[in-house]
């Protein structure tokens, strides 16, 4: 019997086992950590975080969820596109799924066997075409009815941001610093420009052809798509993580450096700024006569069109997503929240909340 039998091997065994188990739990490879993607169509809210969930926008009742049981490997994080008939979304396992809006049953699934991507960006449906960028560098164009590949366009690097389209051209922001303009029908590159930093959110396209987007080097940029040139670029304090709100000639957005901006959409001139208590990751949404913001510190607050503070409510948790449901109702979601979705009316009164049945 060894009272002092070499502890080295025992320690080694414990060390290796601990290392391995910690490694497995630390990154398990499949645990996806992100804020929810939110869409709204008709009387429904579509919530993407792990699963896709359709919720009645009038009372917060769950209508269906896909898949029925959570599947971490095939989790969804991006807001789905809804075309009235189908709900289309990409998952983190290189698949685009179309789901019947009524029943929640799968209609078709597309998987590019060559790709190894993740669909971080939301799809855009233009007429009968689904446009969805992937981290495998490709922008996929699919037939919305069948899921058949129409064309694919290869960027220089991973694609994290959704696209905008005027029905003829598709505008694709890349993490490779490039903005690509692609012909919708053929998938051929029309023009491109280096904007000097990675782009992580979908651009906003105005009816006059002006495209608004930000880069991770803290610039808000307006691109004149007709002239194929930058109309203006403004340095901002902090990064913008979701699309800005374009409202009546004003570009409204918040940054992760606790600041809200209102810029003149034509010139880029600053109309007003407001300092906030928390980082703003979610897009602002219109609510009543002003705008609603959700902050990472759990605050939900409104600002008037002139930047005057309105009401503030505080939730336990972090707010990263927001959605306008009507002129008088908006929803917020995030991480570590008591409820997956919380709605507020224009007066700041909390309306319905959503949690999955059984929670």
């Amino acid at each position, binding site marked *: 019997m060894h009272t002092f039998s070499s*502890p080295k091997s025992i*320690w080694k*065994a414990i*060390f290796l086992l601990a290392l391995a188990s910690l490694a497995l739990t630390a*990154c398990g490879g499949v645990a996806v*950590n992100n804020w929810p993607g939110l869409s709204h169509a008709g009387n429904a809210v579509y919530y993407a975080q792990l699963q896709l969930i359709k919720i009645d926008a009038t009372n917060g009742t769950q209508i269906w969820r896909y898949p029925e049981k959570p599947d971490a490997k095939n989790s969804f994080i991006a807001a789905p596109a809804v075309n009235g008939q189908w709900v289309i979304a990409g998952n983190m396992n290189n698949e685009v799924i179309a789901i019947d809006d009524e029943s929640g049953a799968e209609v078709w699934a597309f998987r590019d066997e060559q790709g190894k991507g993740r669909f971080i960006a939301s799809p855009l449906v233009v007429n009968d075409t689904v446009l969805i960028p992937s981290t495998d560098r490709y922008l996929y164009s699919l037939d919305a009815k069948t899921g058949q590949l129409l064309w694919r366009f290869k960027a220089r690097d991973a694609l994290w941001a959704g696209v905008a389209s005027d029905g003829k051209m598709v505008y694709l922001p890349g993490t490779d610093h490039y903005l690509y303009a692609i012909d919708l029908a053929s998938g051929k590159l029309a023009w491109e420009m280096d904007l000097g930093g*990675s782009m992580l959110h979908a651009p906003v396209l105005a009816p006059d052809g002006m495209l608004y987007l930000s880069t991770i080097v803290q610039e808000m940029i307006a691109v004149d798509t007709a002239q194929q040139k930058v109309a203006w670029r403004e340095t901002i304090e902090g990064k913008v993580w979701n699309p800005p709100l374009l409202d009546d000639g004003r570009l409204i957005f918040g940054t*992760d450096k606790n600041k809200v901006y209102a810029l003149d959409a034509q010139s880029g001139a600053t109309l007003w700024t407001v300092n906030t208590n928390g980082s703003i990751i979610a897009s602002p949404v219109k609510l009543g006569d002003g705008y609603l913001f959700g902050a990472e510190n759990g605050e939900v607050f409104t600002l008037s069109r002139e930047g005057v503070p309105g009401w503030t409510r505080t939730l336990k948790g972090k707010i990263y997503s927001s959605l306008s449901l009507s002129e008088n109702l908006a929803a917020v979601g995030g991480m570590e929240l008591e409820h997956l979705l919380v709605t507020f009316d224009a007066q700041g009164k909390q309306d319905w909340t959503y949690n999955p049945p059984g929670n």
Partner: protein
Amino acid sequence: MWDTIIITPFTNVLLFIYTLMGQNFGIAIILFTLLVRLVTHPLMVSQIKGGQAMQELQNHPRYKEIQEKYKNDREKLAQEQAALLKELGINPFGSCLPLLIQFPIIIGLYQSLYKAMPHTPYDMLVLTRHLYPFLDISRILPINNQFLWMDLSQPERLILPFLPFGIPVMAIIVMATTYIQSKLLTPPSTNPKDQTAMMSNMMNLYMPFLMGYMGLTLASGLSLYFIVSNLFSIGQYALLGKANWKNLLPKPKAAVEPEVKKTGKPVRGKK
């Protein structure tokens, strides 16, 4: 605390090397792993020496004598062994303490690799918040994950045109290097019933499969780290002359002599 002291500095150094290396994340992982292992080299030497001293202790005549003498009195045995250790100047924790110090560093190295390859916008948000001001984010993003045939943020498979499936080359190398490393670092045991040796043998079998599974399912950047780390350990032990190369060779089987079986018979005991 853990983030501030370990993960954030590690992540920044890794990304700093990445920018220096022409935005090649594979080279950055290799150099960063080597750098961390070089910094912890003195700890490794101390661990090896401590382990060797404990190994030698077990063959020391007085150690054996004490064991025999107090085999029925565990308390006294422990006291005498402690006294002997003190007399010989051996620190009983000499081999495990350096290992414990290395533990957070290796875990931090691993976690910083994972953090530097964001998978979601939230991961990216967290990464950008951990970057030191001297790092130019426009030069870091997008992180070029391509290295040789691999996307370092994805599990690796080598696709060959004539095969209908991909070969997990990195997972195989992770398994092989883990096995070789485990075998080389296992001290020879003179006692086949030694529980420690049995445990080591079990680990030598179990760990390569576990690490291989991780190489198969996790991002190949982590497989690259495992391989470099394993090779460095093998090199370290070899340079210090502590690698047991004989462990890699198959052990000769004990031959059973049929003659003895046929002719042998009990010489004592009841019939």
